């Protein structure tokens, strides 16, 4: 009787943990899919880790899955990859000294353009008024 009971308990335990695993697995699948679209495959460099079939991409996805199963956050996983492959592995470059021009360059250009425009317009206005005065 006790034997039977323990067997039942064991089975119940086994199925419940199995069910849990499936739930977390599909959760990890979704996270993996999401995260791997933000990471670069280093072999075919313009495709994401999600799209690439390169052996390295498969290995990296496997590694990311392992880290996720170990309970690492997305940030920790990205940091893990950046540590090994550099910022190049992310499609969104971080803001730092070497990428400052990349991030702020367009705004600098915009400001230079705006200043130039104002100067040119002012000069033109001055010419127009002086012509009006002359005539």
């Amino acid at each position, binding site marked *: 009787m006790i034997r039977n009971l323990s067997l039942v308990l064991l089975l119940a335990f086994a199925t419940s943990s199995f069910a849990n695993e499936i739930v977390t697995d599909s959760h990890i699948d979704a996270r993996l899919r999401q995260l791997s679209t933000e990471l670069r495959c*280093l*072999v075919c*460099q313009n495709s994401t880790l999600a799209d690439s079939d390169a*052996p*390295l991409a498969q*290995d*990296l996805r496997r*590694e990311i899955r392992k880290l996720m199963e170990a309970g690492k956050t997305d940030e920790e996983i990205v940091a893990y990859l*950046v*540590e*090994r*492959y*550099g*910022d*190049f592995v992310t499609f969104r470059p971080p803001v730092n000294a070497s990428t400052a021009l990349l991030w702020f360059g367009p705004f600098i250009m915009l400001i230079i353009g705006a200043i130039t425009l104002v100067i040119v317009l002012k000069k033109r206005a001055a010419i127009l008024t002086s012509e009006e005065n002359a005539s």
Partner: protein
Amino acid sequence: MKLKLILPLLLFVVLVGFLGKGLFLNPREVPSPLIGKPAPTFEAPVLGDSSKTFYTEEMKGKVWLLNMWASWCVACREEHPLLVEMRKHDIPLYGLAYKDVETNALAVLESMGDPYITTANDADGTIGIDYGVYGVPETYVIDKKGIIRYKQIGPITPEALRDTILPLLKELAV
């Protein structure tokens, strides 16, 4: 007033300069963030004799080169004769068989010569990931403290060997 006329031309020349330089850069060359950092430690079975284990810990106090290669990699075959030549000159070269079938890797060493003091076997490529390998061959120069000092991406060329690797080894050996 003259400057105003020349300025666009100057800007254009600068732009052409940048673009021209860009043409000659290699976009496949991703600088390693590991340079100047401690080489990832690992232990791996020795290729050809899995009863033995290669430990990076045992390399402390030595200057050594770690060459990642594979029998399926064409560029590695190109590089191989130079490695054999380097070994003849007592350059401390260690190999890492990256994602390879052991018998295939051993067959290459058999037919083309074995330039390595020891070759570690990284069958599933996890050591490669730790080193940020994205295409073999890649070669790391590691100093006595276990710091990565240089990474050669792609085959070692005679120029890279003469101009960079040999001077570096000389410097590190002191």
